[in-house]
Structure formats: C-alpha cells, structure tokens
C-alpha cells in the first residue's frame, strides 16, 4: 500500500463573494505523478498557492508526510521538502544558471550565516548544482546569465532549482506553458525521468503532457474536485467531458 504523502481535507478559500476553493479533498500517493486539470478559472493556481504556503486557506487542512502544515509559511514548507515551480517563470535573472541552482542547493545545505568564503568557490554547492543542471540538460549553459536563456531553458532552470532543494513533493504549475513543441517534448522527457523517484503534483493545460505523465488525474471545476482517477477513467468520465465541452481529450 503506497504511503500518502499529501493529504488535503476540506480546503476552502474565498475572495469576497468568490469561492475560489470550495472544499477540496485530495490524496497524493508517494512516488506518483498526480495531475490537476480543469478549465480556466477553476481555481488551480489558488489551490497550488495554498499547498505551497503562499496563501492561507480559510478552512481545511493540509497534511504533508503525516504532519499538519496548514499554518506553515512557504519557506518552512520548502525546508520540509515541499517545493514549487511557478507558472510565470520565477528565477534569479541577474545570476548565472549555475548560481541559481547553487542558491537552491545552499538553502538545504546547512546554515547560510557564513561571511567569508566565496559561495562560488564552495564545491559542496557548485558540484551538486552542476550535476542537476546536467540532469535537466542545461550543463552547456551553466555560466550564462539566466536572463539571457531562452524561455524554455528558463523553465528547465526552474525545475532544476526545484530539484536542488531535494524535495519529497514537487508542485509544478504549468511547466510547459509557453513552450514550443520541441521544448515541451524535452520537458516532458525530463519529468518522465522523475517518475517514481519524486512525487509530483502537476497542474497543466497541455493534455499531451498530462496524459503521458500522469499516474492519476484530478479534475478541478469551480473550486471543487469533480473526479479523480487514472487517465483512462478520466477520459471516459461523462461529467469531465461535459465540464470540458469541446476540449480535446
């Protein structure tokens, strides 16, 4: 029986009269890639933010690896092993790719109140960073300023940073957004390589990515989960088809 890494119970969040999150229950199993899909405005990003700690829910509970993290702020969740990538690429534009990943490594490699030794000379930071860049396929570009990377490369960099924090669970908010078909194939390949090794919650619109990567899919409509199941089950689900009216499943 696979362990449940993430347990969400009765999560609710309203903005004024708008119920962005309307009682969500969700279980994510250890090692699975769990996709969350839904039409625009369903509340996917609000949901992710409550999981990552950027938004505080009005009601409900989030349990991570058995621990109640509902009240924990974002940086503490990161330390517990819950990492997030952003829908709009959020990296350190004025640092090199290697620096970006090294910073992520550093956050989980002992304390940072060291004032003398240059961080860039610290092999315990730069070597793991270089390895991760290798893994995501950015090794050749490690010394390039992040702002000068292509959009797709920046998204890869962001995944690298998430990986560098040695997470137990990765929350990926539309990782292939804005990518051309070559780049998204590369990203899908990268994420496929993580299957089984990392637990991934994937919010996506791109159905190619969803159906090739997901072990299970949850469908979010108007702040509620209307169905959870394997890709085949979801494809066949009438309610889901109705919600997506005309969308290509």
């Amino acid at each position: 029986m696979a362990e449940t890494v993430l347990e969400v119970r009765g999560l609710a969040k309203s903005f004024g009269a708008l119920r962005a999150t309307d009682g969500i229950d969700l279980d994510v199993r250890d090692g699975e890639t769990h996709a969350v899909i839904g039409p625009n405005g369903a509340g996917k990003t609000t949901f992710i933010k409550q999981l990552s700690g950027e938004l505080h829910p009005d009601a409900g509970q989030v349990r991570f690896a058995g621990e109640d993290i509902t009240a924990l702020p974002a940086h503490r969740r990161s330390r517990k092993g819950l990492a997030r990538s952003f829908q709009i690429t959020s990296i350190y534009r004025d640092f090199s790719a290697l620096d970006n990943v090294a910073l992520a490594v550093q956050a989980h490699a002992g304390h940072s109140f060291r004032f003398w030794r240059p961080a860039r000379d610290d092999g315990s930071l730069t070597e793991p960073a270089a390895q991760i860049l290798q893994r995501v396929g950015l090794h050749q570009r490690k010394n390039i300023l992040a702002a000068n990377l292509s959009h797709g490369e920046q998204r890869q960099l962001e995944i690298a940073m998430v990986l560098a924090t040695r997470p137990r669970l990765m929350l990926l908010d539309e990782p292939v957004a804005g990518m051309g078909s070559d780049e998204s194939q590369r990203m899908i390949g990268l994420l496929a390589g993580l299957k089984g090794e990392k637990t991934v919650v994937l919010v996506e619109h791109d159905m190619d990515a969803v159906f090739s990567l997901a072990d299970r899919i949850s469908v979010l409509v108007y702040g509620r989960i209307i169905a959870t199941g394997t890709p085949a089950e979801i494809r066949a689900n009438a309610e889901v088809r109705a919600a997506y009216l005309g969308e290509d499943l």
Partner: protein
Amino acid sequence: MTRARIAFWTVLVTLLVLLPPAAAALQQPFYLDLVRKAMIFAIAAASLNLILGYGGLVSFGHAAYLGIGGYAVGVLAFYGTTSGWLQWGVAIGASALVALAIGAVSIRTSGIYFIMITLAFTQMLYYLGISIEEYGGDDGMRIKTRSDFSGLIDLGDPVAFYYLALVLMLACLFLVHRIANSRFGMVLRAAKSNEPRSRGIGYSPYAYRLVAFVIAGAMCGLAGAMFANHTAYITPEFMHWTRSGEIMFMVILGGIASTAGPLLGALVLLVVETLLAGWTEHWQAILGPLLVLSVLFFRRGLAGMIPGSRDG
C-alpha cells in the same frame, strides 16, 4: 581576479599611497584633507552599499550611525576618556546596537514604508542630538584631543591619519566584498533579486537583512568615529538626513553593488562639491539639478565605465 582588475586596483592604491608626498611637494595640503575625507566617506558608502546595493534596502537613515560614531568619540572625550581603543570600540558597538533596534522594527516593512521609517528614526536621533545641551546642542562641540591609540599612531599628524584611513578603507571595502560573495551575501542578493523565489526555496530574508543592517551600522559607526577625528568637531549635522542622501548618492554614482564604487562615488561627489563651492556660494542650486540628471540618465554608475573596476 582578472588582469584588468588587478591593474585597476594596483593603479588606484598606488595613486592613493603617493598622494601625501605629492601634495607636500606641491604644497597643497588641501588635497590630503579632501582625499582623506573621501576615504572616510567611502567606508560609510561601502557599508550602505552592503544593505542598499546588494540587499536592496533603501535606507535613508544611514547618517545616524555616522552621528553615533562621532558622538561616541566626542562624548567620551568630553568626560576625559581619550583612549581611541575605547572610543572607537564604543562607536562601533553603539552603532551596532542602535542598528539592531531600528532594523528590528523597520525591516518588517518594505518599500515606501521602509524609506520613511528609516528617515524618521534618523531624524529622531538628530533631534535628540540637538536637544542635549550638555554636548553643545545645535552647535555641537569641539574635540580637543584626538583619539589616542597608546602612542601607536598620532592622529594629529595629517599624514599618519591619512595612511590609517587608507588602510581601514581598503580593509572595509575588502570586507564588504567578501561578505557580498559569501553564502550570507548570496542569500541577501537573492532576496533582492527575487523575494518570492527565495522564500520558495527555503530562505526567510528577515534575519539576513537584519544582520546585514547591523554590520552596515557598525561599519558606518567606525566611519563616524574617524570623521569626528578628521573634523575635530562633532555636531548633530553628522546625522542630518541630507547627509544620508549624500552617502546614498556616493553609492549610486560609484555603481551599486560594486567593490570600488563607494570609493569612486565618494571621490567624485566630494570633488564636485568642492569645485562648485569654490565657484559660488549657492553651489547646491547647481548640485541639485546635477543629481537629478544623474539619476535620470546615468544609472549605471562609474564602476561600470572604468575598465577593471567592475566586479565579476
């Protein structure tokens, strides 16, 4: 270090070392004074560079520490304590404590609030200085004897003081450089570059910013102690907020987040001020618009322009 950087620093340090004999030969002691003042301010600017240039904290209250450092020297001298070790030690320590207090409250805010709050606290200290009649109030007071360092160095000797300032300045510039590139400095810079991302990977910027604020305050306190010895006079003007603005301009003109920037900025600003002041009594009417223009059109600062002076 690249060859260009080594060349740059060698030339710069050589010029600074050779200045006193050159000034003596030309019988222009004024230049000695000016450059020494610039080096003392470079220390203040370097400390501000740490929190402003690298940390992104727009502190408009940095002159407060110049004042605390200066008054530490002045007040202790007033009560007969002329030991430089004690005076300068208190200058640094008191500045660090005040920075801790002000920083603890201010750093929880950001943006415009932070600017106004740091400004307000500095003004509070300024008024405090004015209202204490014992120490001269508004007019300030003379410092009759300079800090005494057990005979190791005589600050009354302009040249000896100059070289001490040179050594201390280089040490401070180097210290800020090391801090900025250390693990600590990288977190500080990352938080400036992208705060949500920093929280996302597990950093909470508050503690780092507070520590940087305290270090910067302490270093500026040292500059204050030196400045009091330089002018042999201490007045509340040390911590007037326009002085904060001056120091800020030195950081910007020199080039934010660069090692040589504070020195370049201090030299340029003081030279420009001196030239303009020699020209007209109303030099601020010219400096003001010049500063506005420099902000509008010259954002990158000097360190971007001189070969070898830009950091890697």
